[in-house]
């Protein structure tokens, strides 16, 4: 639903963080945890729609990496992957300690050298 605003956020964040490199960015990688409610294909579509309006951005490529949900079990002192949103370790201990899966962030950019 709000993919367009997320993609706008991507461009605004890049412009603010890399004012001198922004024009030379060729690729942006976004990490989205499975708990972020992000659909890669919808982000991709929103991205394509926005760069059509901005000829200067036409050559930027977007990659969305989905990160699985990882939680920590205090009883076993180990991290485990949460499947089907069952936040319960194999040993039967429930947990709220989420190590990974809520991210929505730019993780890497590629840009042309001057």
């Amino acid at each position, binding site marked *: 639903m709000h993919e367009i605003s997320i993609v706008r956020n991507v461009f605004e964040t890049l412009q603010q963080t890399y004012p001198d490199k922004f024009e030379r960015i060729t690729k942006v990688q976004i990490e989205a945890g499975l708990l972020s409610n992000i659909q890669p294909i919808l982000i991709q579509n929103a991205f394509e729609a926005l760069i059509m309006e901005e000829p200067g951005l036409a050559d930027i490529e977007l990659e969305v990496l989905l990160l699985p949900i990882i939680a920590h079990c205090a009883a076993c002192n180990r991290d485990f992957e949460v499947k089907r949103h069952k936040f319960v370790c194999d040993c039967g201990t429930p947990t709220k300690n989420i190590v990974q899966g809520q991210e929505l962030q730019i993780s890497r950019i590629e840009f042309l*050298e001057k």
Partner: protein
Amino acid sequence: MSTPSTPKSNRMPVGAVQCDNTTLNLLKANDFVAKAIRDRLPEVLVINVCSSPGSGKTTLMQETGKRLSDKLNLAVLVGDPETDRDAVRMKEVGINALQIVTGGMCHIEAQMILQALDHIDLTGVDLLFIENVGNLVCPAAFDLGEDIRVTVLAATEGDDKPKKYPRMFLTSELMVVSKADLLPYVPFSVEAVTQDAREVNPTIEVMTISSLKGDGMDEWCDWLLSKVAEKKARLATA
């Protein structure tokens, strides 16, 4: 018809390419505003009430306002894509309320709350409800500066929702099963929904309420009063 463009991955950029590994949070702006809201309301308990459309949030707010009017000072910010009908309903029962019209947007963002705070008198208010846009998906991602998130799930919606919309239940402290007076007539198991919700969020509390008939309303109001008291106690010791 336009010709299909070359996939970008096949285009070789001219010149040498450099990489920067980074961590730039895309919800940073919202989280920043959410913190500003917390800083501005140290004495008010803020509860973000989320649910699907039609789960009975507004009726629950109305009945809560009537029951607690002599015990605490309550205000409501209510979000909807269009119309001010819910704020009108609150004001009809004497609740200090302000409508946030999101203009079609599927969720409230922290910025809308911050702006609304300039247009509602919160002097002496102990408890501020934010009645979010009816939607179990998008509002889950937006921190509104609340102390507590509560998700309302009507008995008529079915008991499979916690597993279908895990992030909402994961981030809620309490799940209110509303329209409990209809439980005898619909296939909804409070036991099953509690088990599913606790697989997503082991510490979630569950309460069964009928706003119209009054069942569970005492427990709900006592819970609210204890949370308001806890926040005031935290402020006093801070």
